């Protein structure tokens, strides 16, 4: 069982959370010509690293806030969690 530290509520069991995928994916900027390839990359392509991964989680059965977690995909260790507005770069 994973224990995940919600930045707003503290440490809670995995059962309260839902996963939201890679948090480093950036939507192409609005008001700018977007090539098909940029759009495909945003929608479908993922780095999918083995190791540290910055990802979105949703405290869906708790405070219902979205937040970011830095987690190791090889060991499942959760290294740290952040509010969405925190600028933490990418995971590595």
């Amino acid at each position: 069982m994973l224990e995940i530290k919600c930045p707003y509520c503290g440490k809670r069991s995995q059962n309260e959370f839902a996963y939201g995928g890679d948090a480093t994916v950036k939507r192409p900027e609005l008001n700018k010509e977007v090539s098909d390839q940029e759009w495909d990359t945003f929608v479908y392509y993922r780095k999918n690293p083995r190791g540290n991964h910055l990802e979105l989680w949703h405290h869906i059965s708790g405070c219902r806030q979205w937040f970011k977690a830095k987690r190791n995909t090889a060991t499942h260790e959760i290294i740290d969690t952040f509010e969405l507005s925190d600028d933490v770069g990418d995971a590595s």
Partner: protein
Amino acid sequence: MKKYSAFSLIKNAFSYHQNWDVAWRDPEPKSEYEVIIIGGGGHGLATAFYLAKKFNIRNVAILEKGWIGGGNVGRNTTILRSNYMYNANNLFYEEGMKMWRNLSQELNYNVMYSPRGILNLAHSDAQMNAYSRRGNSMRLNGIDAQLLYREDIKKMIPFADYSSNCRFPIFGGLFQPSGGTARHDAVAWGYARGADDLGVDIIQNCEVTGFDVNNGKIQGVQTSRGNIKTKKIGLCVAGSTSLLAEKLNMTLPIEAHVLQACVSEPIKPLLDQVVTFGAGHFYCSQSDKGEMVMGGDLDGYNSYAQRGNLPTIQHVLTEGVALFPNLSRLKILRTWGGIMDMSMDTSPIIDKTHIDGLYLNCGWCYGGFKATPVSGLTFAHTIAKDEVHELNAPFRLDRFHTGHLIDEKGIGTKTWIS
């Protein structure tokens, strides 16, 4: 290769089974091969087997980081089926079903093919309509499908919950009589023995650490057992696809996720078919040893760990007990996890790439095992002829660019929206 037969079994009994030939050699890697397959799982072994058998390319090596059959081909729940709705999936998997029927004879190895039927249960009128549509689609493609109603299901699985206070009552189901199971390890071993007999080198404990690419053409691979030259590489590494692609500066529409399965303690024969619960994600069959083999959802977060967490097992088994209340008294014998190469539209990718001589076989999501023979055959065709087979033509990588997705379930890696 000495053929396995009843006669050879009796003959070897006289020497207390001490003189059987090894099923495959343990060769040192040569300095050059015509084709190198990376990944000694079911698909890699099948690809090498059909390269040698159907396309007469025998100077082939399979490079396996661990041991053959130690990855997903040994971790699945052994289910065979072709009960899809889209033509691309129907035709592809049904060709696979035809191959399963003769596989034991083709390999001279008993893969314990058991066409016991697969039953998808429906728990609402809407779901019955959806199954009726899918069943019609299957029948139009020549696949056996039967729409069953509650009374039919009662005869098939009398121990399911038919009580009046059942949360998800069984309305009926879609039955594919030719679906079933096969022994997964035997599939890996049978293909390994067959490929080895045709001259393929199966090189275990050999990790690929890099690729030699020159002017956009494959020149060879770097491995933990030295550099090997080749002009053609087939990537069959399931959950590790993104890791090897990264060494080639490629990003793919794939996420690695852990999928767990479990077996109960063995019991007397109870369940004749493969049954899936329609109001959640739970499926169950009974192995020849008597264990109930059960599986369901992904854990739901990116993972390369080959192990999962208890909440998913609890969730899946809760659904199991909702369907079959008598399961609640069984103990779980063991659980395990495998790494799924989840593609973004839940369908596989078998294709050439922009690198000349690099071929891709990945994105199998939950369902790679049943496709083992047909994936091997079409991938071997793609490698040998440098063009896709008509059956894998819809499963090209560029569909994520052109928009021709095969989104059979419409969820892809995003299990949190399902």
